[in-house]
């Protein structure tokens, strides 16, 4: 290779340079590394990995910067965690900006278009002015708790995922603050000045406050993430925000609060998925999975009891402002939380990894199948199946393939797109599907065929 250097006339002959044209310190999950992986993975290391000479700095008392004892969970592969949303800073900020700009435009516009005057007075005060106005305390407490987890988390991908969650909490806090200003500008006399008193002394909120205080006080970063995303938010957060506020706001002429709640809801789902993935990682640890399951079960018992107490204390709100009592709502929330945990092999569900005596006779009963007519999408799907589900039977039958597998067939549109060379959504994938057997579930990015003919939640 020859090159010239600006400002110099010399032309130098050098041999060509050998080198990899991508980062080599991690194995991508897909064929090519994603932006998320390239920009996130490999930031954090320690003496057990690359830092062979040991930490050049410790706390003044000798504690190492990161220690396994920062959580009771043990894992040999913290670096293997991947945020299922693959979120990194630019899309995070862009999405938050879109949401915030939408809220900033829509809410004042809706209120000024006459919707503000139509909000029932007894919904406005105290439901919004006293109780929803106190929810920023919840968000602030969870923000604080998560920031500690950001400091202590034992992996870069984990820390960044939690940092974005903390950011969401602060944003939700301020969204409510903005809403309070919007309401005050629309309804004369509206004030949220009673919110602090409600937070500190009102029996409706005191158990929630104590729940939050205990989470913030917790010194185990993993336990914090579990207590926030698998217990408090699915039980107390959802009961208050979805079951009470979002469901009842329209009945009281309130069209704006659900807008704020909807944006928070999307983030909450992402937090839950991120935490579920983290739990899966530590349960799958070959050396510590069983012990981790025991630790998690203990935490879930403790925090669920705490959060049920906080949830039950919200009952007066349902009596005063709801369409019914808290009972059915709380049952639904708790059932969904149990579903969530069962899906992770925790709580009331089947214990993942435990011996299943029925498995040996399941045989044919667990087989699923799909028939795909020949197309570029189908060719890509066959490649995907052969790589990702190699135990599948793939049979080319003239103009179509029949693919069968004992267990589950999952077509991830992102992975399929990798092999196809362009993005594909589920609608396009289904164009090629002639038939299937098993229980099919189509979500935004997956077409999955399950052997269980009923979802877990229908099982006793």
């Amino acid at each position, binding site marked *: *290779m020859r090159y010239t*250097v*600006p*400002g110099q006339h*010399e032309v*130098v002959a*050098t*041999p060509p*340079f*050998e*080198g*990899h044209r*991508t*980062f080599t*310190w991690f194995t991508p999950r897909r064929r090519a590394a994603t932006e998320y992986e390239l920009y996130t993975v*490999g930031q954090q290391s320690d003496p057990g990995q*690359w830092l*062979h*000479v*040991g*930490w*050049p*700095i*410790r*706390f*003044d*008392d*000798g504690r190492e910067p990161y220690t396994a004892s920062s959580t009771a969970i043990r894992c040999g592969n913290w670096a293997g965690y991947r945020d299922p949303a693959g979120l990194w*800073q630019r899309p995070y*900020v*862009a999405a*938050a*900006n879109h949401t*915030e700009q939408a809220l900033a435009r829509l809410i004042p516009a809706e209120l000024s278009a006459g919707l503000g005057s139509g909000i029932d007075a007894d919904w406005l005060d105290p439901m919004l002015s006293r109780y929803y106005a106190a929810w*920023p305390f919840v968000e*602030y407490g969870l923000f604080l708790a998560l*920031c*500690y987890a*950001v*400091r202590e988390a034992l992996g870069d991908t984990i*820390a960044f995922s939690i*940092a*974005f969650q*903390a950011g969401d909490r602060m944003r939700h*806090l*301020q969204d409510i*603050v*903005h809403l309070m*200003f919007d309401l*005050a*500008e629309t309804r004369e006399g509206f*004030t949220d000045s009673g919110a*602090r008193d409600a*937070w500190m002394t009102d029996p409706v909120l005191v158990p929630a*406050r*104590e729940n939050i*205080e*205990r989470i913030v*006080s*917790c010194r185990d970063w993993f336990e914090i993430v579990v207590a926030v995303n698998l217990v408090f938010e699915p039980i107390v957060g959802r009961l208050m925000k979805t079951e009470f506020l979002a469901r009842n706001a329209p009945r009281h002429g309130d069209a704006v609060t659900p807008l704020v709640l909807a944006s928070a809801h999307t983030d909450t789902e992402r937090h839950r998925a991120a935490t579920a993935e983290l739990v899966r990682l530590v349960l799958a640890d070959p050396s510590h999975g069983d012990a981790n399951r025991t630790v998690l079960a203990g935490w879930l018992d403790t925090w669920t009891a705490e959060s049920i107490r906080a949830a039950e204390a919200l009952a007066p709100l349902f009596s005063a402002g709801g369409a019914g009592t808290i009972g059915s709502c709380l049952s639904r929330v708790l059932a969904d939380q149990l579903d969530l945990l069962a899906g992770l092999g925790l709580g009331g569900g089947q214990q993942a990894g435990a011996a299943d005596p029925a498995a040996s006779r399941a045989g044919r009963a667990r087989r699923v199948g799909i028939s795909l007519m020949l197309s570029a999408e189908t060719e890509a799907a066959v490649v995907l199946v052969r790589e990702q589900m190699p135990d599948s039977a793939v049979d080319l039958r003239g103009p179509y393939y029949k693919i069968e597998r004992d267990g589950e067939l999952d077509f991830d549109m992102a992975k399929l797109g990798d092999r196809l060379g362009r993005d594909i959504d589920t609608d396009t994938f289904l164009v090629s599907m002639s038939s299937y057997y098993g229980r099919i579930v189509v979500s935004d990015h997956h077409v999955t065929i399950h052997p269980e003919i009923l979802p877990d939640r229908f099982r006793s």
Partner: protein
Amino acid sequence: MARSLETVHAKAKSYDWPFTVGDQRPKFPTRYTIPATGKDPFRMLIRDYVKMEAEKDDRTHGFLDGVLRMGTAGEVQPRFMECMKLTLPGLTFAEFAAVAATGGIISSVQNQELRQGYHAQMLDEIRHTQLEMTLRDYYVRHWRDPAGFDISQKALYQHPGGLVSIGLFQNFNTGDPVDCIVNLNVCVETAFTNILLVAAPQIAVANGEHAMATTFLSIQSDEARHMANGYGSLMAVLQDENNVPALNRALERHFWHSHKALDSLVGWQSEYGATVRPWSYYDQWQEWVVDDFIGGYIDRLTEFGVQPPRRLAQADEDVRWSHHTLAQAFAAMWPLNFWRSDAMGPADFEWFENHYPGWHGAYGGFWDTYRQLAHPSSGRLILAELPGLPPFCQVCQLPCVMPRPDRNEFRLVEWQGARYAACSEGCEWIFRTWPVAHAGRRQFWARYHGWDLADVIEDLGYVRPDGKTLIGQPALDLDRLWTIDDIRAIGFEVKDPLA
């Protein structure tokens, strides 16, 4: 509730409350008392923050997209890009360490306004980490020699030069939380990173690299808020005069450590990573550190009891030489680098002597010899010509030949029956004051004591994909590159100088 930025911000920061249950002990103990008052002068709200940052991202990533079409990657001075293989990962580590740092600070500072300021900083630091990774991804794909960029995270943690970065920046999140603020927000972000992130882009552009300039300047546009966080925290802590002695010790410690690490590394990148040099590092240091930081900031805090660093004069003297000495050390150990180290030539000699009178007498002979041995046909390594390998300072991690080999201030420090190397009186003072914090790192040479140099290189993975050509090379104009066989034929054995 009339709405204005002030009223919304005032309300948004009003959600602290006194806890009634749970473990109230601080998670990160501090020797300071931290009053519950403190200001974020930017009054940053998330809604405004994401709007501003999204705009910055669009511009910066847009440029990084456009620069591909401009095809400028092939026009950069090779020296600049080769030095960036160390400099950029070192900086990225600073950003990453600062993410955790802000998590720890938020957990420690009982003040929502400051916490909000540090929260915006947390998101900034993630931005900077990932923006720099975007830049590194661009380099590994498009710079003509990707070797080194491809392994740079692993290499960062293993190379002695990477440890200079880790030793300073891990301290952002590992220590008394207020000391961490003094390190991160006051010393590094208010004083030293200005040279790297504001002034160094000028070097980049002068040497043909525009992507780095755009990226760094966008990063630094966030740093102004971080300086304000440091200022707000300092003013809070200074409300209690009992905090002043500890604060002054922290300032002394972290100013000295920042000086040692950053002046050496950034000076090396700026002058030895350049063919075109629009300024001298020493002059930049006078402007950004002495005039702006000390004169325009620290001196104004003296009425509250803050003392300018006592070792400022010593730092001023050192900064004339330390990056030249580091450049010499890096060049001498070129087979152990994950970048190619260029030899300095007559035009460089002239520039250095003009800007640093006495340079030729101190360093000219080394570079003459270095150039003579650069071709693999010489069959010699300059490393083998040295009387011995220098130990690395237990505090700043620099080789103990500072500030200049002929004025070496190296000293051994005994602590609990073991000997530790310190490169200077300042680093010895830090080690003796905080020995537990600094004693844990083993010598790089100790790990490889008795090894053949070729085995060390292979252990570090500094060999190209052909399995024989070294990543590190001692010049940029070689018609044949050094291989592992060339090194093995020399038979150089690594000896730990402290063994």
